[in-house]
């Protein structure tokens, strides 16, 4: 007989402001993060569309934007990268789904520090506004990586004045917000698990959010340090990153009126551009794992649920994520093989980078092993989970090329690199977000998303994104450099224009296909088929509670956990799934 108990739950807030604007409820905050990321992703996609169009039709005059100057193209490049990496990939999987479902999946009524949680969202929001403000004063052109001295000297190009200061400020605010979030995730996971929910019984999504939070905790402080030093170089005349004797007369058209070498540049002395790279990439490499690890957790969760089979090698999956997290901190130099860094350091970094391929491979084998001898149901969330695995394989296998310094010589800073990282971050991680959306939509909104529209969305996006990013590997091998606003000046690039045109057409179709998702999302919230409490017949705790979950998640009671998270098709059980808080009658794992 189930035990029931009267517990005074949190009093729910009243009033629109407290309920929806400054909510302390992790579920509302999760939705706020999600919708912020949704706005950001469409903005980021729009920028990439403008970039692709300009590459193929560089002299075309576009509606609203007119002629796209080279510096405008580079502004698009910079803002696209910054928006996507920070406000989509670091926001939706962790701040969005992590916030919403971590407490529920571990059986807690909320995050450890609800007020801090609210603050972390609104700080992220302000960071976003500050970044968008840069558009209006001339956004920087130095790429999301912001290498000094290009980013450290305001006269290096248009947008490198106030625009760059706003960019740095936005990122600094984002650092603070992420750190607040990481604090919450870690404390909640360590201290608020329900009875019986040991660490090794947590769903892999919880492990993913936990490890991602630890990565963020250790990495964002370093980015903040770099940003502070950069702001000082730009505004206080310090020389952390700027060496002496710089001369900018080569660029005769900017600043307007020309540049005089007798002005403030000679005040700088002795700074090291490589120092910025070290600080940035010490953060930047863990950041890409922050972007992908939550997606890995979602993939594990969905592959198991929709194959009706436990995840193959739960412990190995946990250790692999931990290994990826730890190794992720010692590989940053692989972004710097050509930078002038010591070749001995390069060798050390490359060994570690190959090593990090091993846990990634283990996870891939285990995902495929989960499907093996399972019983696959092809609901839309599962389609995106399968797509995730395929894209992770493709994007992951171009890594070992770049990880070897000799092979990096021809490939560094060519289109090969965006091909590699877009397949992983720009597609696989996005597939993780899509998969999570289709999967958890019923629990969040009480309706099902439309399956037909979901399938169209899946196939268009899978074929479309492969068509965009796989060819970039070929372009890179042929020597097409990154971040070129036009392919007209360097002669050996001319034969590559037809393939670039193909990519642009693929991008147009793929981006159009995302509106199917957008329509499906909003239409289903109102008109979708009503969802039961557990439409997928899944085992984890969010499916034990009402749809949508009540304010304290479990209606005044807390669950007691008796089973692992992936007990599907247990021999001898009455149904093909055992929920985590089912009584301990079946063999306990």
């Amino acid at each position, binding site marked *: 007989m189930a035990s029931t108990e009267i517990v005074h739950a949190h009093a729910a807030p009243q009033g629109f402001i407290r309920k929806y604007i400054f909510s302390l409820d992790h579920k509302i905050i999760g939705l706020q993060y999600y919708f912020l990321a949704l706005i950001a992703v469409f903005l980021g996609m729009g920028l990439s569309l403008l970039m692709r169009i300009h590459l193929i039709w560089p002299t075309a005059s576009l509606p609203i934007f007119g002629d796209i100057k080279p510096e405008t193209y580079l502004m698009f490049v910079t803002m696209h990268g910054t928006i996507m990496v920070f406000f989509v990939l670091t926001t939706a999987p962790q701040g969005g789904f992590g916030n919403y479902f971590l407490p529920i999946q571990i059986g807690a009524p909320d995050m450890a520090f609800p007020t801090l949680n609210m603050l972390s969202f609104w700080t992220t929001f302000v960071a976003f506004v500050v970044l968008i403000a840069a558009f209006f004063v001339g956004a920087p052109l130095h790429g999301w990586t912001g290498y000094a001295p290009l980013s450290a000297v305001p006269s290096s190009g248009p947008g490198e004045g106030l625009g760059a200061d706003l960019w740095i400020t936005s990122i600094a605010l984002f650092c603070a917000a992420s750190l607040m979030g990481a604090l919450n995730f870690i404390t909640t996971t360590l201290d608020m698990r329900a009875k019986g929910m040991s660490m090794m019984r947590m769903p892999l999504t919880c492990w993913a959010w936990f490890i991602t939070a630890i990565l963020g905790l250790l990495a964002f402080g370093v980015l903040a340090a770099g940003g502070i030093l950069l702001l000082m170089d730009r505004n206080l005349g310090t020389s952390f990153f700027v060496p002496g004797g710089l001369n900018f007369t080569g660029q005769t058209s900017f600043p307007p009126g020309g540049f005089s070498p007798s002005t403030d540049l000679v005040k700088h002395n002795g700074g090291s551009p490589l120092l910025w790279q070290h600080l940035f990439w010490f953060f930047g490499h863990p950041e890409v794992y922050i972007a992908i690890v939550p997606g890995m957790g979602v993939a594990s969760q969905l592959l198991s649920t929709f194959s009706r089979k436990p995840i193959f090698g739960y412990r190995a999956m946990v250790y692999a994520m931990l290994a990826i997290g730890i190794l992720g901190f010692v590989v940053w130099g692989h972004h710097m093989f050509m930078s002038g860094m010591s070749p001995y350091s390069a*060798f050390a970094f490359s060994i570690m980078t190959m090593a990090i391929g091993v846990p990634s491979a283990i996870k891939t084998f285990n995902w495929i092993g989960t499907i093996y001898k399972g019983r696959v149901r092809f609901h839309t969330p599962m389609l995106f989970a399968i797509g995730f695995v395929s894209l992770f394989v493709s994007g992951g296998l171009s890594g070992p090329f770049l990880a070897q310094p000799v092979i990096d010589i021809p490939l560094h800073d060519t289109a090969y690199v965006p091909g590699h990282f877009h397949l992983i971050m720009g597609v696989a991680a996005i597939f993780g977000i899509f998969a999570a959306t289709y999967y958890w939509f019923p629990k969040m909104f009480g309706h099902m998303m439309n399956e037909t529209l979901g399938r169209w969305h899946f196939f268009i996006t899978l074929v479309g994104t492969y068509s965009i990013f796989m060819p970039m590997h070929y372009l890179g091998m042929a020597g097409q450099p990154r971040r070129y606003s036009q392919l007209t000046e360097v002669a050996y690039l001319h034969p590559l224009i037809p393939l670039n045109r193909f990519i642009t057409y693929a991008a147009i179709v793929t981006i159009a296909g995302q509106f199917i998702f957008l329509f499906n999302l909003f239409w289903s919230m109102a008109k979708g088929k009503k969802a039961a409490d557990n439409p997928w017949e899944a085992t984890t705790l969010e499916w034990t509670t009402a749809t949508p979950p009540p304010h304290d998640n479990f209606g005044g009671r807390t669950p007691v956990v008796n089973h692992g998270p992936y007990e599907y098709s247990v021999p001898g059980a009455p149904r093909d799934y055992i929920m985590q808080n089912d009584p301990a009658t079946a063999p306990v794992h």
Partner: protein
Amino acid sequence: MGLALLAIIWLITFFSTYFFVAKTWWLPVGASAAAPWIDHQFALTYVLMGIVFVAAQGSLGLFVWQYRDRGSASQVHYSHGNTTLEVLWTVLTGVLFIGLNLMGSSVWASERFEPAGPGAVQVEASGLQFAWYFRYPGADGKYGRTKPELMDASAGGEAAVGLDTGDAASKDDVVSGTMYLPVNREVDLALRAQDVIHSLFIPAMRFKQDAVPGLIIHMHFKPVQTGDYEIACAELCGLGHYKMHGMLKVVSQEEFDKWLASKEAEKQ
């Protein structure tokens, strides 16, 4: 649906692999001494990764079809995994990845751990927004002094690198917008940058190195084929990054000497 997924995944795998195998778009023909070694390591990597790629995508596609839910005909094999298999494929993957890296490390060592040999051609490459200038030290083998305050890119040539004509060593320095090199001789390239980070990239030579302000970075390579090779900038350097290109002309030793002599004569 399982069949559709299998078809799509296998088709994507087929087309991706096809263009790699057919080398429809590929590295340009190598023209340096190091190119065959680099290309060999590249080929080894892509064969091994290609096998893994086909195997992984193939099995993914196969399994989602083979193990689709067929109602009562489906029998799920309840299992939490297989530790032996985990250990096995972990070790194999580790050996493959690390082994591959170690095999390429000797090429890296010879390229980068050792400086240029004696007798190498000396060239200094200066990157600035948005052009490359190449300086030859002349008969005295010494580069003359340069001063940032003398730099004036609009005047081109010696002024672009800020050559201090007062320095005795500057007298025989030759500055050119085109890099000339004699074939079959190693070149000791000194890379510099005047304003922001640039990167000298010559695809056919399998050569790339960032030019960093505040540093003089020495790098060497040996062209083994005459011809004209385009140079591209491979590090974002501002609005003109896309048009910051140059040209390397590899010629016979005689032609190189003739060219250098004619440039010296121009200075008088």
